[in-house]
């Protein structure tokens, strides 16, 4: 069976769930019509969706509905003005909730901490991965389409008043396909988009106030591979569904330029 790329899979699910915009949906539908592997997977997703939906919801017995409706007569809603009391620790449900939170935290133990703690520091990585993800879902992952770095660089310059060095890596198998602007943590940042076979690589560049240099570090964010490094006045994040080895290879070539 042909292996579908992870982003194609997510797109197929989004298409089945009618969560794609019209342009992206049309483009994907055309690919589904042309590629049997996509069509088979799409048919399976639709069948599974239908099967799950057919399980339906439990019937609400008249007895139960009456019991719930009667709650409105017995209980007294908390007026909006007194809403602050919800946060009082005296309130029994909050005590129970707090106890359960403590219990959960205790039971889940240190493992959870390891997974959640880096995330809070890594919000910019999340934003970069989300941006890449959105770009893949959008009708076009690039705002300026050109394999010519002498087109992309001035375009970014004109938009943002800054542009990162735009490496030409076509000879190494990573042709430039264009650029876009992404707003990350409130800052509009230039993004260069390269291609490796069918995989897109987004390179986000954030200008650094100082000339600090950081060696490349790899990680996985939301299922995407990401390499970040700093040098030449910019902090870079390269994100892609490309496998980690090829992505590192790309980063090595990019840094040499």
């Amino acid at each position, binding site marked *: 069976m042909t292996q579908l790329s992870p982003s194609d899979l997510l797109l197929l699910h989004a298409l089945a769930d009618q969560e794609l915009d019209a342009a992206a949906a049309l483009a994907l539908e055309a690919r589904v019509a042309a590629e049997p592997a996509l069509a088979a997977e799409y048919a399976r997703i639709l069948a599974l*969706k239908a099967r799950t939906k057919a399980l339906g919801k439990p019937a609400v017995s008249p007895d139960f509905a009456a019991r719930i409706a009667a709650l409105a007569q017995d209980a007294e809603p908390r007026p909006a003005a007194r809403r602050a009391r919800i946060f009082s620790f005296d309130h029994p449900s909050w005590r129970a909730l707090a106890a359960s939170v403590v219990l959960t935290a205790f039971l*889940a133990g240190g*493992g959870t901490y390891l997974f959640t703690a880096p995330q809070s520091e890594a919000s910019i990585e999340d934003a970069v*991965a989300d941006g890449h*993800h959105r770009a893949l879902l959008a009708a076009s992952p690039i705002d300026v389409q050109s394999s010519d770095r002498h087109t992309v660089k001035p375009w970014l310059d004109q938009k943002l008043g800054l542009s990162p060095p735009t490496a030409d890596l076509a000879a190494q198998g990573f042709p430039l396909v264009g650029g876009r602007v992404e707003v990350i943590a409130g800052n509009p940042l230039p993004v260069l988009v390269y291609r490796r076979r069918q995989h897109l690589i987004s390179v986000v560049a954030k200008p650094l106030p100082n000339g600090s240099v950081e060696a490349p570090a790899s990680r996985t964010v939301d299922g995407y591979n990401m390499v970040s490094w700093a040098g030449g006045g910019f902090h870079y994040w390269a994100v892609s569904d490309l496998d980690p080895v090829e992505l590192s290879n790309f980063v090595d070539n990019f840094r040499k330029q």
Partner: protein
Amino acid sequence: MPGNEQAAELFRQIVVPHLADALALARWLTGSLHDAEDVVQEASIRAFTAINSYEGRGPRAWLLSIVRNTCFTWLAKNRPHEIVLVGSAAEMDGTELGLHEDPALDPEADMIRRADTAAVEAAIAALPQPYREVLVLHDINGLSYKEIAAMLSIPIGTVMSRLSRARRLIAAQIGREAP
């Protein structure tokens, strides 16, 4: 008191019509319809006492997020061993489970269509909790990616990967059980 009358009316408009959705979510989060009724009753009381904080949009999503929270409180009290899954949601989103190497869905679409209801229900019940809740909220409750992302405080991309992963796990399970 007129304020109470208004609140009772609001409760009848935004909670009572969505009881089937509330029961469906609670049934899949607690694993039993009987427990689901207890949880939904408790959630309805919470919804009523908090009805003045209802902001006037998405009544179903509003009620379901109360049901979800009530489920977790209930699970912590009644099934302290299972609540651990809630805490470990984060570790399931990475590639540790081989999301990238995930094979395509095993069985053919026809096989999925013919699968036993009991087999589909068992496959959903067997899903890890973070996948199960996204699948139920989307495919049974019919919430959008955006509504689920807001309710669970996770990025839309995570909703998408959990949902596709959940469906693939179910399909794989159906494929294994088919003769």
